């Protein structure tokens, strides 16, 4: 974060590009607001000691069900800080897919050991900054094995970070929601690394990095680590 270079004043940007940036911002603000509902709904259970995975799942399940019913998300839930639960060092109260399956624990194929998610961006960044974050596009091999934009919000209870709540948006979904606006703007949505989220140019795939010499003016999408690249 903080590496986003804002070049060019918004004055030079077309109305369509500004509208595209607002649309991206509105989508993720909607996700963040829905995650705030889950976060505050979990505060009570997070004060329980010792807290067991089963108690967490019981509290998080109905909240996550509402979250997933309200928005076009692939999955979502609460991911515990390592060591926060009494009975599992690492735990994901996370539901995903058509059947909304509970993930619980994620293991590395080939070694069978649990994945330590504490170093991946969608966990680390909101915990370190204390703010909502959008990670991606990235292939999420911890949760879904899908190409994803993951929104995560830190959960702090009594001054202590106990985990993150998050929601997954498939790139497929994002494309279907935003392609119209992106085309209208003739622009590309990029993340803070100037990695393409969605481009109006059909030859520029999602995931490609835009080289420094090819970067035009960037319109930020509010406080999100995303922007609309024009020109």
């Amino acid at each position: 974060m903080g590496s986003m270079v804002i070049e060019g004043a918004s004055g030079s940007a077309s109305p369509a590009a500004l509208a595209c940036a607002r649309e991206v911002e509105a989508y993720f603000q909607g996700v963040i607001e829905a995650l705030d509902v889950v976060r505050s709904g979990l505060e009570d259970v997070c004060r329980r000691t010792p807290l067991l995975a089963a108690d967490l799942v019981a509290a998080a399940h109905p909240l996550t069900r509402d979250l997933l019913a309200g928005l076009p998300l692939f999955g979502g839930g609460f991911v515990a800080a390592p060591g926060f639960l009494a009975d599992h060092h690492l735990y994901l109260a996370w539901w995903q897919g058509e059947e909304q399956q509970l993930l619980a624990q994620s293991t590395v194929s080939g070694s069978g050991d649990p994945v330590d998610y504490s170093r991946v961006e969608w966990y680390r960044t909101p915990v370190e900054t204390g703010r909502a974050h959008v990670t991606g596009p990235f292939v999420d091999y911890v949760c879904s094995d899908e190409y994803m934009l993951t929104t995560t919000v830190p959960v702090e209870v009594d001054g202590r970070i106990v985990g993150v709540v998050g929601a997954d948006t498939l790139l497929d979904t994002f494309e279907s929601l935003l392609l119209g606006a992106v085309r209208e703007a003739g622009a590309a949505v990029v993340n803070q690394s100037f990695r393409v989220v969605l481009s109006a140019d059909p030859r520029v795939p999602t995931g490609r990095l835009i080289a420094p010499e090819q970067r035009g003016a960037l319109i930020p999408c509010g406080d999100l680590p995303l922007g609309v690249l024009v020109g």
Partner: protein
Amino acid sequence: MTSTSSPRHGTRTRGAIFAPLEDVGRAVRVEQRLADAIRSGVLRDGERLPSESELAAMLGVATVTAREALVSLRAQGLISTVRGRNGGSYVTRAKLHDPDAQAARLAAMSRVELHDRGTLHLVVLAGCAELAAEYADAADVDLLASLLPEAGDADPGHWRHADAELHLTLAALSQSARMTRQVVGLEADFGALLRQPLGDPEFQAFTRTCHEELFTALRAHDGDAARKAVRRQLDRAVDELAVLHASYR
């Protein structure tokens, strides 16, 4: 993790072609659901599974479908079946790590099969490395590098886990979910065997050198060098495994 690949032999393919239409794929789905639950630890080691008929009733499939799924899980070493009064199918997750089970699996493999699997692994991961060199940014490479065990750590378990996670992360850097799932399947299939040589500190040191070459290549966006670094490590891993294999036969 989801999407485990399962062996699909000729006989099974033929069986699936001529199975009643509504049952096509059901055994595979039952098998995948149970395999995922075992690998992820939701079903615990030593836990007894419901009987064939109980499973069939619970999942709403024919008994023969449940049986087919259990046969496949047994072939993968994920469950074992005990006969007699306390008989039934038990989860054998521990076997995922059991060196004897790995040795037995290796001994049962032909030299041709070993190289066949090694080749597939090598081509796919070298390809991932080449694409990752194009797509990875500095933070991605930092994350990869953080997976390597600390200098002086010679614990085989740490090395095997780190190497498996590194390959998975590398696959994800291709920005292709299908490629990543392919690698998940390859890892579930052959990963544990391919990492047997990582018990040897000398091979650990070699692996560290190769991975560091890979990180340098990724930072330089040098696809050729990235491909070569992965290839060098995997070539030697297959060589070491082949020598180990020869000692069993």
